[in-house]
């Protein structure tokens, strides 16, 4: 870029709070026409909030948005779309039973002379877009029959067909294979040449390094730095992303775990989709972390162990005994409990009471002769409410009336009721406040100390580092490397907060390395 490119988007002084928590604090963000601009930051840094502000989903409390030289008239999705802002959706906004062309022009179909929808015209225009981008997607194909990569390209073509001048891509590569990512990049470079501004969000530093021109890093709702990518090597990026956070976690004492016998052992376990040939051992008294990006197979591994998606090959052994886990009930019988990632659908029944949810996994055990022992239900619920300090008006209130953190405690309580020896927690602190987070991490440590084996999955590295004794790094469904928590510590560093940041940087680097090994294997 020689001549200064025109500014496509200028956001100045954007602030936004949710229930007293400042998600964005006086953030400036500027994207030029014809550049790929990476937006980076850890979980909770404010990336998705600022994108939603730009997209008109959230109304900022302060600040101004100028698109293509004109101030945005209103903070609504319609106004944003009219200004030429388009965004891909993680959950795919495509209708599987319609064709690619029909999806691209949905609600904007061309009409023929009699006012009927002219599908042939849609096909022609869709083909023109794909031709322009030199990618091969059949406009006649049903979206339901496409692979993830082609769906993603269709999604993007839909955005382009609306004459988008600003294209927001939120983790577009998560569902894509390596060759599809390549194709996407070719596509993006072409768009760029046409002067479209592209905002690219990804956790994969290697991708960022390859596609972006500039990057903006956010941390704790604040703007940290905007710089050309040439000035941001990966380790510098990670340093800016990690920064000085993790307050409230650093003070959780890790304590020395006394590792006991092997509780759970996996040998070459392969699931229906993921994971692939994963082997590891979990000992009594330890917390094992699973680290990796979205789609690395961490949650799939948890579902395999818990019998939700039974393994198709490999062996699972509990205390040295080979076991077969075909259904969730098998896993529960073997003392395995999974606190699942999607709390609202997989964890609880929101409309049912706290007590009913707590006993859901043990109905059989507390129903002698088929009749539920109701005093026992009350006793179990009260005990767990007390033990986990669940804040609820009563055990008879619907779980939906509780806060996120307390709902999560109900899920954890429900599984503790089964008296598991092996407890798996998948993103146990997602979407809950920092106070409850520290409480849950502390609970995890206590459970391990009481002789259980605990597996924790988390995208927040500081959390993994605080909770775990060992960390398994996963990428693309495979176990990449088992790290001892102590290895990640710098013996020179004495300040606990700095030590945690240093460890987080190292773990980040390991995760990114695992990814690049995967690409090398494929490439």
């Amino acid at each position, binding site marked *: 870029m020689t001549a200064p490119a025109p500014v496509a988007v200028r956001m100045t002084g954007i602030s936004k709070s949710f229930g007293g928590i400042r998600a964005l604090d006086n953030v400036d963000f500027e994207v030029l026409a014809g550049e790929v601009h990476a937006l980076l930051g850890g979980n909770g840094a404010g990336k998705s909030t600022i994108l939603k502000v730009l997209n008109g989903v959230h109304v900022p409390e302060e600040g101004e948005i100028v698109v293509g030289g004109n101030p945005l008239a209103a903070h609504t999705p319609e106004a944003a779309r009219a200004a030429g802002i388009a965004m891909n959706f993680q959950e795919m906004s495509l209708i599987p039973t319609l064709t690619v062309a029909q999806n691209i022009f949905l609600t904007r179909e061309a009409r023929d002379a009699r006012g009927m929808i002219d599908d042939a015209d849609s096909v022609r225009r869709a083909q023109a877009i794909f031709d322009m981008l030199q990618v091969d997607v059949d406009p006649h194909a049903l979206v339901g029959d496409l692979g993830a990569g082609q769906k993603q390209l269709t999604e993007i073509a839909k955005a382009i067909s609306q004459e988008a001048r600003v294209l927001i891509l939120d983790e577009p590569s998560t569902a894509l294979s390596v060759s599809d990512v390549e194709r996407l990049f070719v596509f993006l470079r072409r768009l760029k040449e046409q002067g479209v501004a592209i905002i690219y969000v990804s956790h994969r530093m290697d991708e960022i390094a390859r596609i972006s021109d500039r990057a903006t890093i956010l941390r704790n709702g604040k703007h940290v730095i905007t710089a050309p990518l040439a000035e941001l090597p990966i380790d510098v990026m990670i340093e800016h992303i990690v920064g000085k956070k993790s307050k409230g976690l650093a003070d959780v004492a890790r304590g020395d775990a006394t590792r006991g016998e092997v509780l759970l052992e996996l040998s070459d376990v392969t699931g229906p989709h993921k994971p692939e040939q994963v082997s590891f051992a979990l000992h009594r008294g330890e917390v094992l972390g699973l680290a990796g990006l979205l789609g690395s197979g961490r949650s799939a591994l948890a579902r395999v162990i*818990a019998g*939700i998606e039974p393994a198709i090959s490999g062996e699972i052994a509990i205390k040295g005994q080979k076991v077969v886990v075909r*259904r*969730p*009930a098998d*896993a*529960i019988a073997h003392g395995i409990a*999974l606190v*699942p990632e*999607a709390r609202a*659908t*997989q*964890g*609880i*029944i*929101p*409309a*049912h*009471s706290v007590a*009913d949810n707590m*006993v*859901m*996994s043990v*109905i*059989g055990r*507390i*129903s002698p002769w*088929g*009749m*539920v022992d*109701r005093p026992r239900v009350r006793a179990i619920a009260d005990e767990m409410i007390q033990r986990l300090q669940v804040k609820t008006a009563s055990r*008879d209130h619907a779980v939906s009336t509780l806060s996120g953190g307390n709902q999560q405690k109900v899920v954890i309580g*429900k599984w503790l009721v089964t008296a598991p020896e092996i407890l798996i927690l998948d993103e146990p602190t997602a979407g809950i406040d920092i106070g409850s987070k520290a409480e849950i991490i502390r609970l995890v440590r206590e459970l391990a100390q009481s002789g259980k084996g605990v597996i924790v999955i988390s995208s927040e590295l500081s959390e993994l580092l605080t909770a775990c004794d060992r960390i398994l790094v996963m990428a693309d469904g495979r176990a990449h490397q088992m790290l001892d928590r102590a290895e990640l510590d710098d013996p020179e560093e004495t300040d606990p907060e700095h030590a945690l940041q240093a460890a987080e940087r190292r773990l980040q680097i390991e995760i990114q390395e695992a990814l690049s090994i995967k690409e090398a294997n494929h490439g």
Partner: protein
Amino acid sequence: MAKAATAPAGAFFANWRQNIIYIGFVVIFVIFAVTLNDKGFLNPNNLLNIVRQTAMIAVMAVAMTFVLSAGEIDLSVGAVAGLATVTVAMAISVAGPLGGVLAGLATGLAVGMFNGWLTTKIGIPSFLTTLAMMGIAKGVAMWISGTAAVPILSPGYSWVFGGGSVGPIPVLLFWIALVAGIGHIALRRSGFGRRVLATGGGETAARYSGIDTASIKFRVLVLSSCAAALAGMLYAGRLQSGRFQLGEGDELSVIAAAVLGGTSLFGGKGTVIGTIVGAMMIGLINNGLILMGLEFSQQLIARGGIIILAVALSQKTR
């Protein structure tokens, strides 16, 4: 779950929307008692008639409460009841009353297992499975009976199944009490009932919790067909014959009774007591409208309007 039965009086009125069915029942009863007193509404015979006319709906609606609570639906109950009247009547003529009872139960079991198998193993939604079964059951009933009524010549059978009475109290009232009692305890107190509510309330969470949700759905559909067969046996006993037309269209009244009583069409929430009151309310309305001297066409319109009003009032939103 509705807490109506256990909540103190204050909470009862605070949650008036949830308890609209009980309030509505009393209000309608009082209105009819005042306006139709001279036409014999409060005559004990008339009140017992309401019970006789609603018994079969009530029996089927109790099972429907389980089906809806599990997040499924059964549209075949009316047709299955009709089929059962025919199989029972035919079996009695060759094998006596006991054979009739067995034939009725076998009819319910066979249809229910087929519905359950199609829904849980083949994966056809229960709405479609049971819609198809509605036609199949009626067709089979017409075919094996040659569309003619099959008389039942066993006074003992007729007495037990719907025709008899103990003093002034019709045997049908005992059947309602029996089915309602078992249903209420099973839904509120048994492990099975909890699993049914969990399956309908959040199928994924229930499955993650180790509940075999497919088996629960299978069982509620079997339960529903067996209840429909029992209702058919009661029809047959009361009318001393088996006819394919018996029970025709009952599925709508049965579902309306459960929904009026506070059972959610979307699963996870159900109450047997509410369902019984809902069934009685439908009977009450039918009876009152007849006593008012409305024509059948007018009755249909009035009944539909009252049901819509009651369900609309019980909705939480707005």
